């Protein structure tokens, strides 16, 4: 017993020492905006060496990377490490805070996250000269988003729609977000844990346009989702991993991303993207260059390469998201690809008429933080 008491005493001393030590030091984790100028990632000389790209899964075909390597002599380290914007920020934040990028030259994040990273001082501006070839091919619809009107620091990788991904054999009549709340599908529906994907859609199903939504609308919608989650109606909140649950039959209808549905179809033709009756949400995932990126020159080489319609067509043919590159449709048609005819890749105005691009709660950072906290409590069950 004595030995054990000694141990306890030791632990107590340790805690005491920690408290004393804690008094002694000042400051905390430094965060916050860099007030100074945003640095520009300068291109220097001929591109060479290695470029490290952090992207989402299911976002590129198998041939583009090796072909780029062969053509340019640049080695690509392509990492599929983004499963969720918040999650990814948490992973890279400590490095970016120190001005390091963890070797990453390009990261791909959604609009609002690109905006937030820029505000936190984690991104560099583009070297306009080096990126000019890519920018010349950017489709006009995506050229001036609210968060980056001149595309100074972000360039779309792909854009897409958030809507319903449904297993038609098991849930043939799901056409509206409201159908996800149908008791018939209890425990077999899932929603995305990205607040900006899920909440606006559910809100639209209740007749509130996200553009006009108040803080209260956001809170009410979150409350509605909470009730459905607690009753077991919603099985899970997922990142990109909902594809696994759809594939193995645990989920029959989910809120998901347009391009994923097409890739899941390859294994199971019953899985389809369904444009919800009330509309979808539109977003872009953007290439950004983080502070401390070791090889921006090669990063521009990559961006210019994927913005060549010939190369872009290959990516679009694989992933079925909206392509941000002019002239891709013609190349796809020439290739005889079905993607050229797909509403998911080249949507008509009619198809996306009801879709919304609004993803932030109104009223500034304080409200956003409050809404985000309420949302986190729902998706983790607090």
């Amino acid at each position: 017993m004595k030995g054990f008491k000694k141990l306890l005493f030791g632990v107590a001393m340790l805690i005491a020492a920690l408290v004393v030590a804690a008094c002694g030091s000042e400051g905390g984790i430094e965060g916050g905006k860099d007030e100074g100028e945003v640095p520009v990632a300068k291109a220097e000389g001929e591109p060479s060496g290695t470029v490290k790209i952090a992207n989402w899964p299911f976002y590129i075909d198998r041939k583009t990377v090796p072909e780029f390597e062969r053509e340019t002599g640049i080695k690509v380290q392509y990492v599929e490490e983004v499963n969720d914007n918040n999650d990814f920020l948490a992973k890279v934040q400590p490095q970016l805070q120190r001005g390091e990028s963890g070797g990453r030259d390009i990261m791909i994040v959604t609009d609002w996250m690109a905006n937030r990273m820029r505000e936190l001082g984690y991104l560099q501006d583009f070297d306009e000269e080096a990126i000019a070839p890519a920018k010349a091919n950017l489709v006009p619809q995506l050229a001036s988003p609210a968060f980056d009107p001149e595309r100074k620091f972000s360039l779309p990788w792909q854009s897409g729609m958030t809507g319903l991904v449904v297993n038609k054999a098991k849930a043939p009549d799901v056409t509206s977000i409201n159908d996800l709340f149908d008791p018939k599908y209890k425990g077999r529906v899932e929603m995305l844990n990205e607040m900006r994907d899920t909440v606006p859609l559910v809100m639209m199903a209740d007749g509130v346009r996200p553009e006009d939504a108040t803080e209260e609308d956001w809170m009410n919608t979150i409350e509605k989702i909470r009730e459905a989650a607690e009753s077991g109606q919603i099985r899970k909140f997922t990142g990109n991993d909902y594809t696994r649950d759809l594939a193995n039959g645990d989920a029959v209808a989910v809120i998901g991303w347009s391009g994923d549905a097409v890739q899941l179809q390859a294994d199971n033709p019953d899985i389809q993207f369904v444009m919800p009756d009330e509309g979808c949400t539109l977003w872009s995932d953007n290439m950004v260059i983080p502070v401390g990126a070791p090889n921006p020159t090669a990063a521009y080489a990559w961006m210019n390469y994927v913005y060549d319609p010939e190369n872009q067509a290959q990516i679009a043919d694989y992933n079925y998201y909206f392509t941000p590159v002019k002239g891709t449709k013609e190349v796809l048609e020439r290739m005889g690809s079905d993607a050229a005819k797909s509403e998911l890749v080249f949507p008509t105005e009619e198809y996306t008429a009801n879709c919304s691009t609004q993803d932030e709660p109104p009223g500034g950072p304080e409200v956003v933080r409050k809404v985000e906290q309420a949302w986190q409590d729902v998706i983790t069950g607090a």
Partner: protein
Amino acid sequence: MSTVRRRLVPYFLMGPGLVWLILFFVVPLYFMGRLALESGTLATGFEFTWEFANFTDSFDRFDEQFVRSFVYAGVATVIALLIAYPLAYAIAFRGGRWKNALLLAVVAPFFTTYLIRTIAWTTILSDDSVIVDVLKAVGLLGDEGRLLATPTAVIAGLVYNFLPFMVLPIYSSLERIDVRLIEAAKDLYASARVAFWKVTLPLSMPGVVAGTLLTFIPAAGDYVNAFFLGSINQSMIGNRIQSLYLMELDYPTAAALSFILMAAILAVVVVYIRFAGAEALMGDEGEQRA
């Protein structure tokens, strides 16, 4: 050897362990302690302000997950004990020449990583799986029933993943028992049952105590099983800490919550050891030396 040197030898031997403990336990603990008392957000930066409210607030907000974690971990520990003891007993006393092979079988799952094993369970227990079909056919599960995303699945996952930690210590203490003691009990007219309760079980207590601690402590802080095998209604405190760190980037609350978890586990363990007796944990050698 001089006396000075002789006196220094133990410290010298402790050196590597001590350095390891300071670098990877004390130092991180210190930083976490500081973090737990900071306030602010990622955007404005965190500042050290002796924010003790982090502790009370986080406990108020997540008391449900705390209770759930301890209940799940407790149930999992009891089930693991009920499975592990007979298993260890059989291997130790009836294993014969198969002993090593059987022990290897207990450890075999560890050749695959923890994460992969748990993800494999999501396939095994999925709604369309054979297991679910069979359970439905024999009426143990309703037509609408499922295994995945239920407390059953989470607890089963905990039991499965920590079972070897229970089996091995129990086995090693059973293995060390001098069989002559059991024979002596029988010579003194103890039935097999009485001999077990009065001789075998008490002598194997160090293994039982060590095994239960090795199972309970990691299970209470685990979040992998609840994440893959549960839903939000089964989320444990580990899931909450994970999401505070990695999704909300609310480091101070996450750190405070981690401290509360450590303190709570420590308290449970202290009470348990008081009750079970430290002698049981250290064995009789421990008792003699203390």
